[in-house]
């Protein structure tokens, strides 16, 4: 038998029982549709997370803490950056029997000079009151060197990065704009933005000041206002070592003029009392994620602790593999039900076509010919089901995506694609549909091949 004849025979047989073919195929369409949508959702989640990591350059980033310092050293032992108890990303250096290393400018230079390190800059941020368009918001301001602000670590959506480390210019991010109710990012460019910082005024620590404080007077703090020009709007802010989003970025030169509290958290105050100077953390950007291990080892050898999100990412990927498997299993159930539908249809078909099978055999069709006609019919159902099932899965996920994005847009969440349809998903869905249908058609086809022609021709 020729392939073309198989196809024509199967198609004409299926065409004769259009409604049943349609219903059986619809079962496969729904099954494969569910399967496709499930898988593509898992893939989409994975892709979004991976892209976020990549676009924020997180895989290229190693954060350096002073020995025993950093968020992991807090008394309650929690590590906010690593998220709960999964502190796998944290690796702490143990300087053996020497004075604890200090994360100062010398350390910064040494780290910046390591092979594989693109840049290293201190993680400096401070809280400030932000005044824009007559509104006041309390935000964390990140001090970011101009060369970093100009790199792909900060994705400028509108405008430009600040011109130099000394410029009184500021980059704000999309979250901040939504927070202050600015719809069009372009309209904010060139606007005047004021940072009101709170600084510690030692003069107010004089006994008189303390007395006045105790009597309900002002705290020993100064408020000072600094003007900045908004030059750029970034996609999103920079992630600091604590995973806190800093929505405003200013160059270090301008930041140096701001009198601010020299600490970000109450633990910094204690550290200050211990007389330990230095930065609370350094951001190290690598030229390639491949250098992460060697750079981390060298930094730990210097006696510092490191934290790399790349390590977290590997764990996240394992988590996604599990999620994909669960989603695929749910999709499989629908495909399995569809397979039962195929078996049912094929067995019905054999009962109805017993006489036809008898005729086929009487005119010289072998067992193999009869078997392959039925297997072919099942695989045609599978192929069509896979084709349209993929289409259905695609259409449904498009619709879900639109609805979800519509509602999330009202809450200010930017639209993203929650589903991913790589090319191999199409081929995979099609191959899976055909394979399942073939398997479902195998038993009925064997039964058809075993039909006794004498009985079949007597059959009415």
């Amino acid at each position, binding site marked *: 038998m*020729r392939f073309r*004849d198989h196809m024509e025979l199967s198609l004409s047989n299926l065409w004769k029982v259009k409604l049943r073919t349609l219903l059986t195929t619809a079962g496969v369409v729904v099954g494969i549709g569910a399967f496709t949508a499930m898988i593509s959702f898992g893939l989409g989640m994975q892709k979004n997370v991976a892209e976020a990591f990549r676009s924020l350059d997180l895989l290229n980033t190693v954060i350096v803490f002073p020995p025993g310092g950093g968020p992991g050293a807090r008394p309650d032992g929690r590590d906010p950056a690593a998220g709960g108890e999964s502190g796998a990303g944290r690796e702490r250096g143990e300087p053996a029997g020497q004075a604890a290393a200090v994360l100062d400018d010398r350390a910064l230079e040494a780290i910046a000079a390591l092979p594989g390190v693109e840049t290293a800059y201190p993680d400096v941020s401070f809280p400030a009151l932000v005044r824009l368009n007559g509104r006041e918001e309390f935000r964390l301001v990140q001090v970011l060197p101009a060369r970093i602000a100009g790199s792909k670590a900060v994705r400028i959506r509108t405008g430009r990065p600040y011109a130099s480390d000394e410029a009184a210019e500021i980059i704000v991010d999309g979250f901040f704009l939504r927070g202050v109710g600015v719809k069009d990012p372009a309209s904010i460019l060139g606007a005047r933005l004021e940072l009101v910082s709170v600084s510690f005024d030692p003069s107010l620590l004089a006994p008189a000041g303390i007395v006045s404080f105790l009597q309900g007077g002002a705290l020993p703090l100064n408020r000072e206002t600094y003007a900045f020009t908004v030059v750029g709007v970034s996609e999103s802010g920079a992630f600091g070592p604590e995973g806190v989003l800093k929505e405003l970025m200013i160059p270090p030169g301008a930041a140096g003029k701001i009198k601010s509290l020299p600490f970000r958290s109450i633990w910094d105050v204690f550290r200050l009392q211990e007389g330990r100077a230095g930065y609370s953390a350094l951001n190290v950007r690598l030229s390639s994620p491949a250098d992460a291990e060697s750079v981390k080892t060298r930094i730990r050898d210097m006696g510092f602790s490191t934290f790399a999100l790349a390590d977290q990412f590997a764990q996240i990927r394992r988590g996604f593999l599990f999620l994909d498997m669960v989603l695929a299993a749910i999709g499989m159930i629908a495909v399995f039900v569809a397979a039962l539908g195929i078996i049912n249809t094929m067995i019905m078909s054999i009962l109805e076509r017993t006489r036809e099978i008898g005729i086929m055999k009487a*005119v*010289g069709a072998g067992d193999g010919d009869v078997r392959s006609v039925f297997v072919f019919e099942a695989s045609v159902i599978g192929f069509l089901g896979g084709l349209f099932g993929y289409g259905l899965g695609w259409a449904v996920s498009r619709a879900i995506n639109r609805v979800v994005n519509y509602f999330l847009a009202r809450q200010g969440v930017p639209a993203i694609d929650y589903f991913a349809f790589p090319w191999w998903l199409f081929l995979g869905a099609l191959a899976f549909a055909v394979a399942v249908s073939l398997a479902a058609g195998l038993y009925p086809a064997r039964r058809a091949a075993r039909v006794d022609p*004498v009985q079949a021709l007597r059959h009415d």
Partner: protein
Amino acid sequence: MSRVPEPEAPPERVPAVDVRGLSKTYRLGRVEIPALRDVSFRIAPGTFAAVTGASGSGKSTLLNLVGGLDTPSAGTIAVRGKALAGLDRDGLSRFRRSGVGMVFQSFNLLPARTAHENVAFPLIFSGVAKAERRDRAAALLEQVGLSGRSRHRPAELSGGEQQRVAIARALVNRPPLILADEPTGNLDSGTAREIVGLLAELNRSRGLTILMVTHEAALAREFAHIVIRLRDGRVEAEERLR
């Protein structure tokens, strides 16, 4: 039982059909029903042979065995010197494809297909290309006098026309042997005579060996070379007419 003498007319020495000690027993639950008991006969190539007998005499069983649709309980069948017992399932289907053409009482045409498609159908399993299938089917339909009805479906044809389509189908793989199982059973006497006449004509013009089962003794005597009479599964008599 007398030995069948070698017929002189066809020159070949090997019989077209050689049946030796053939028995077939059906099993219905625990009851064994003997359909054929120790049947032997030989048919020379180019012979039009008729098998007659009452209903239940084992005629159809005999034909199914010779046609390779069924396997005997005992005895041997050789068609043109080739023993069917030596063939596996695939071998038997190859034999049915090219060694023999079958015609049935109930025509056994595919109802959803046209006369033309029915005639060409067996060629699909022989792997014959579409163009050749079309040509061969058209030629055969013309030969059985149905070229004008090739696009009709069986339901749109008379009984006689349907049987002609079935005969054309039996010929399409050019087998040397045609087995006809009560080909006139569903036809009126006039049409029945035409159909048997067509078979006799094919026997004459193409040198086909024909083994026809019928309960119409008169038709058998009118056209056949030899008549084998079955009774209760045994050969009762074998008569050479011409």
